[in-house]
């Protein structure tokens, strides 16, 4: 499956570069959709089928559509997709950061652990959806409080967005 990884890596990086460099902001949004979709397929190769479905539903189905709506609503003022005056300093800094990250990632000796039995896990190749639900809502090791906080965050974000854009 190595060829699949390299194909997906090239397409996703190319789409991300196209988001930054494309002169037409609407086409940049479409390249963003391509980037999200290739990342969803990468999730499938990483045995994360539920996350791949969530990626398609939330990122492509909701966030990209919201971004395209915002592009259409602000069509009057935009003139292309210009750089600001940090074009070259930012390139230098992010290039330096990329080099440092890659050096650290390749020099680090990543450990292979034996998973403790109490941490939620499935065998490689098994579906993950039911196991994610069981791990998320487990009574002892679960994530019930973070789940509730995430729900409150979404509620606050929805109310905040409505209050911000409401006509006075």
């Amino acid at each position: 499956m190595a060829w699949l990884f390299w194909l997906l890596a090239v397409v996703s990086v190319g789409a991300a570069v196209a988001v930054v460099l494309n002169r037409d902001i609407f086409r940049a949004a479409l390249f963003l959709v391509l980037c999200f979709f290739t990342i969803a397929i990468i999730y499938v190769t990483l045995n994360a089928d539920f996350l791949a479905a969530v990626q398609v539903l939330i990122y492509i189905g909701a966030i990209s559509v919201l971004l395209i709506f915002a592009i259409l609503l602000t069509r009057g003022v935009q003139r292309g997709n210009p750089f600001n005056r940090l074009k070259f300093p930012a390139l230098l800094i992010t290039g330096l950061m990329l080099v440092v990250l890659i050096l650290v990632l390749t020099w680090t000796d990543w450990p292979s652990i034996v998973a403790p039995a109490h941490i939620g896990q499935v065998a490689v190749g098994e579906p993950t959806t039911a196991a994610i639900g069981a791990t998320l809502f487990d009574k002892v090791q679960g994530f019930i409080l973070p789940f509730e906080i995430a729900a409150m965050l979404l509620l606050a974000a929805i109310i905040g967005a409505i209050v911000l854009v409401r006509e006075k």
Partner: protein
Amino acid sequence: MAVGLEHYLILSAVLFCIGLYGALAKRNAVVILMCIEIMLNAVNLSLVAFSRYLAPDVVLLTGQIFAIFVMVVAAAEVAVGLAIIIVLYRSREVIDVEQADTMKG
């Protein structure tokens, strides 16, 4: 050469740096939001790669659950961010971050 944890982590680092460059060097506020989404996706990719490869023969689900929480925060952030951009456009007719400098000291 078999594809392993480092390949996915380096892909994640490349995507993160592309998104960071766009967020630093672009003027259009909507494009900056798009680049922040690319950065969040890159972090999610590294979390999922760790959940697959840290224990070689099983998939640890906590990494995937962290990725789900990151997606929740990303959805909340993009909703509020786009609302702020729409308000900025309505009140000042700009979505260029260099012209939105009322609070500059």
